[in-house]
């Protein structure tokens, strides 16, 4: 346990040192990155063996003589610590070439400080063992990430996005306070272990409150709307860590509160499963509908949170149905997906950052042909895209396979759980298909074809550290996909301390995993054989080159390429009215047609509904109460006196 505190101290020291050294730009970056990474390394060095051996630890400290700060580590916390310590060093190394504007060196220093606070607070969140510690760490995490999002605060849009994130972070925290207060009113204790003593009727209500609180962090539909705003606003190494690791803290919270409450009602699992399906499907459809790469990736995070929740929901339904296999593989699948997603989503965000850095735009409709101009970014982005679409032989498939496997075990259920399980499998299939469509769109339109604008045509490859980090991550996506066994063991050890499934025997399943690995290997082998065969066929032959055949026209103009909007149109339209498409067409009115415009936008239904049913009525109401605030000091003093009198008399 002490090693972890050492690691957190080193991480924080890295951030502070970065800020202090901000005048020396390069030195600052080197020191901050090296120290923080070293801290993460220490953490990882402690976490991994402990996770595999499965030893728990606790520690507690007295803080200000009023509260006890209690920490404990079980397999679940240890598992979540792995991405927390694994991903940030990589994104930090990436930031070395990403933050290269010397004018903004103070800002970069502040950025490194908050970055280290974010890592430390995330580690503290998963280590906490009582409400006080947890909420402290949670707030620290929300605030530090808020400052990270506000990096480019000069732009109005970014500030707006930052405030929206702040609103959701604090709104979510309020739900958590409510849930914890409810627990405290029943148990009279701050300790996490007291949660299970809460009466059964209250548990469902507490869980729903906490689910909303944690869900707003994780990004479940419809309280996800900060994600597609904050991610495009934040610098890419920050979006990488927020999407790859921080939103998983929401998932951790949901899982932790579920474990602590030990609820017996089947409703909880069903709520989680249904939310997961809705989140997953709508997330991917919105992702498909968006043309801004980072916004698209943010929605794809929503989708992946959906997949993770489907796995978790399968697990919870399995627990309430007393189906050990279903429960085990559901939980294991969601854990595996958490781990994998943290890698490929960070990779994709960094790829998007690299594109934004060099092509100066993140709009897919303005990109194209980057594969030739940015070979490393292009290839790694391609690998990440295959992985996130859940296709073998890359890592995304492994998590989905486990979830499928768990869901199929659940087909022995009856009635409602049976229907739910069927729907879960079908939704996973739909999500998979739509994710393929979504990421072929990004890769196909942004990286392949011809550049649509001069900005895209002028792009060149990003700095060395950026390419190196993305390369490492792309390779690890492939390695996990081909040799999944050690990583699956990691996920299995993660759920070792989950009492509901701890007695499950995984021996039979590991042979399946080996077969899976063999299949991936056969496929790759076959791929190489066929590639060599193809090379031989082309040996000593005439290879011509010319323009793309366009039915009589050859390459008339690059603007005639298929666009992202039209690529997605049919699929998105299929999900109308949940994903409404708004078209504005000025039309041709004169005999000799003048300029005309056609615009197609997809607005998030959650956002428009909030606007229509929540914020607009609220603003109207508040507007009517404006007379209370009139600027007369004497009357304000009168308010205070009235308030005090009322308080004294009635309370």
């Amino acid at each position, binding site marked *: 346990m002490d090693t972890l505190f050492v690691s957190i101290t080193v991480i924080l020291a890295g951030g502070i040192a970065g800020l202090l050294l901000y005048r020396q730009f390069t030195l600052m970056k080197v020191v901050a990155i090296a120290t923080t990474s070293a801290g993460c390394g220490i953490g990882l060095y402690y976490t991994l063996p402990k996770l595999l051996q499965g030893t728990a630890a606790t520690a507690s400290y007295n803080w200000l003589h009023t509260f006890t700060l209690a920490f404990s580590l079980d397999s679940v916390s240890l598992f979540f610590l792995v991405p927390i310590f694994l991903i940030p060093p990589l994104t930090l190394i990436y930031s070395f070439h990403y933050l290269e504007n010397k004018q903004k060196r103070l800002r970069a220093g502040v950025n490194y400080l908050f970055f280290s606070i974010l890592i430390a607070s995330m580690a503290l969140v998963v280590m906490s063992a009582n409400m006080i510690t947890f909420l402290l760490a949670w707030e620290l995490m929300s605030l530090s990430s808020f400052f990270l999002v506000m990096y480019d605060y000069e732009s109005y849009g970014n500030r707006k996005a930052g405030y929206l994130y702040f609103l959701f972070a604090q709104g979510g925290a309020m739900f958590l306070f409510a849930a914890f207060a409810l627990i405290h009113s029943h148990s009279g204790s701050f300790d996490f272990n007291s949660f299970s003593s809460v009466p059964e009727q209250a548990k469902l209500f507490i869980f729903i409150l906490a689910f909303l609180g944690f869900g707003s962090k994780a990004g479940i539909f419809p309280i996800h709307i900060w994600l597609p705003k904050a991610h495009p606003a934040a610098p890419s190494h920050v979006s990488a860590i927020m999407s790859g690791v921080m939103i998983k803290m929401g998932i951790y919270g949901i899982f932790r509160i579920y474990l602590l409450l030990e609820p017996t009602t089947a409703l909880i699992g069903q709520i989680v499963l249904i939310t997961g399906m809705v989140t997953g499907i709508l997330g991917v459809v919105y992702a498909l509908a968006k043309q801004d790469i980072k916004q698209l990736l943010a929605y794809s995070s929503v989708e992946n949170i959906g997949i993770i929740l489907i796995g978790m929901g399968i697990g919870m339904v399995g627990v309430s149905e007393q189906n050990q296999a279903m429960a085990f593989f559901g939980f294991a699948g969601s854990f595996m997906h958490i781990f994998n997603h943290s890698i490929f989503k960070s990779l994709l965000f960094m790829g998007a950052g690299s594109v934004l850095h060099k092509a100066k735009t993140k709009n897919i409709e303005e990109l194209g042909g980057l594969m030739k101009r940015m070979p490393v970014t292009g290839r790694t982005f391609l690998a990440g895209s295959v992985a996130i*679409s859940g296709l073998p032989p890359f890592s995304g498939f492994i998590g989905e396979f486990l979830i499928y496997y768990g869901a199929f075990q659940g087909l022995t259920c009856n*009635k409602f759980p049976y229907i739910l399980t069927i729907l879960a499998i*079908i939704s996973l299939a739909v999500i998979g298909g739509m994710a393929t469509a979504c990421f072929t769109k990004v890769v196909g339109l942004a990286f392949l074809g011809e550049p649509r604008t001069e900005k895209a045509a002028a792009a060149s490859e990003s700095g060395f550290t950026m390419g190196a980090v993305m390369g490492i991550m792309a390779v690890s996506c492939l390695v996990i996909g081909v040799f999944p066994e050690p990583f699956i063991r990691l996920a299995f050890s993660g759920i070792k301390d989950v009492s509901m499934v701890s007695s499950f025997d995984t021996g039979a399943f590991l042979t399946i995993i080996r077969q899976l690995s063999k299949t991936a290997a056969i496929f790759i082998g076959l791929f190489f054989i066929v590639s060599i065969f193809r090379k031989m066929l082309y040996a000593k*032959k005439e*290879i011509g080159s010319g323009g793309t055949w366009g039915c009589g026209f050859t390459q008339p103009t690059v603007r005639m390429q298929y*666009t992202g909007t039209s690529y997605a149109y049919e699929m998105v339209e299929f999900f109308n009215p949940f994903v409404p498409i708004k078209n504005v067409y000025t039309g041709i009115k004169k005999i000799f047609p003048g300029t005309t415009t056609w615009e197609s936008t997809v607005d998030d239904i959650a956002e428009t509904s909030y606007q229509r049913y929540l914020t607009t009525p609220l603003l109207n109401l508040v507007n009517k109460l404006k007379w209370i605030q009139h600027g007369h000091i004497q009357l304000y003093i009168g308010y205070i006196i009235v308030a005090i009198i009322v308080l004294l008399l009635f309370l």
Partner: protein
Amino acid sequence: MESILSFCFAVLIAPLLPAVIQKTKAYFAGKQGPPLLINYYTMIKLFKKGSVYSTSTSFVFKQGPVVGFCTSLMMLAYFPMAEIAPLFSFHGDVLILFYLMGLGRFFTILAALDTASPFEGMGAAREAFFSTLAEMTIFGILILFFKLTGSLSFNEFFSGEHVISLMGEYGALLILVVAGLYIVMLTENSRVPVDDPATHLELTMIHEVMILDHSGPDLALIELGAYFKLLFYSGFLARLIDPFHSDNTFVNGMLFYAVVLFIYISIGVVESITARYKMNVVPKFILTPFILVFFVTILTMGVLQ
């Protein structure tokens, strides 16, 4: 040994069978049609040629055909043709195989988008959309088969205690599945009424428009992949409806391929007597089998308990 022979036979015969469809269509049109070995001639011709690559394309364009070919070949390696155990098989192979098909599709779509063509993206978008819808049916079928056999492997579906067959225990339920799978086969292999490989207008094509720019050996690989895929689906269907069983492996194989041949002829008949649907009707057509299969899955809840 049997497995290897069976696999090789399937690979070798795959290009022959589509010619049967052409023959059937020719018969309906009152023409003589191409020779039965036409596809072999085409393959040899294509393999001999060189290629012309568009200046817009990158390495992805060249990988597309290879990945597509490999994934289709994988299906044949894991599928038990003619009651003979496949080369490889394990509990859970259906999941990875259908996802491998997804990988093939992923790269075919990318190769199409790589050409910067105004048309190929159109086909790509449709391919991505329609196959997602078809995937729903496929997973519906997998759910049902798991319910019937407790297995997630092609080989175990058709061997062991509860063999899935129209003549078997739950044959009545499977009638709807057979209809559903037939529609999925038409969809996934770009046949009429979803897609018309013989149409003259690129705007109305799905699969053919995606491969407009491929030529020579690349095109041959794509075509071969398409033959394997069609053989896989019709083999799958044939295993369901095959009413014959003989203890002699050879006779059994002959009977099985006779059923496969029957399916190919039926595709030819369907193509001859129906026209391609309007594009906006196609999603409804593809969703029909999903409803059928979902209905059957709900039915099993009562039947099997």
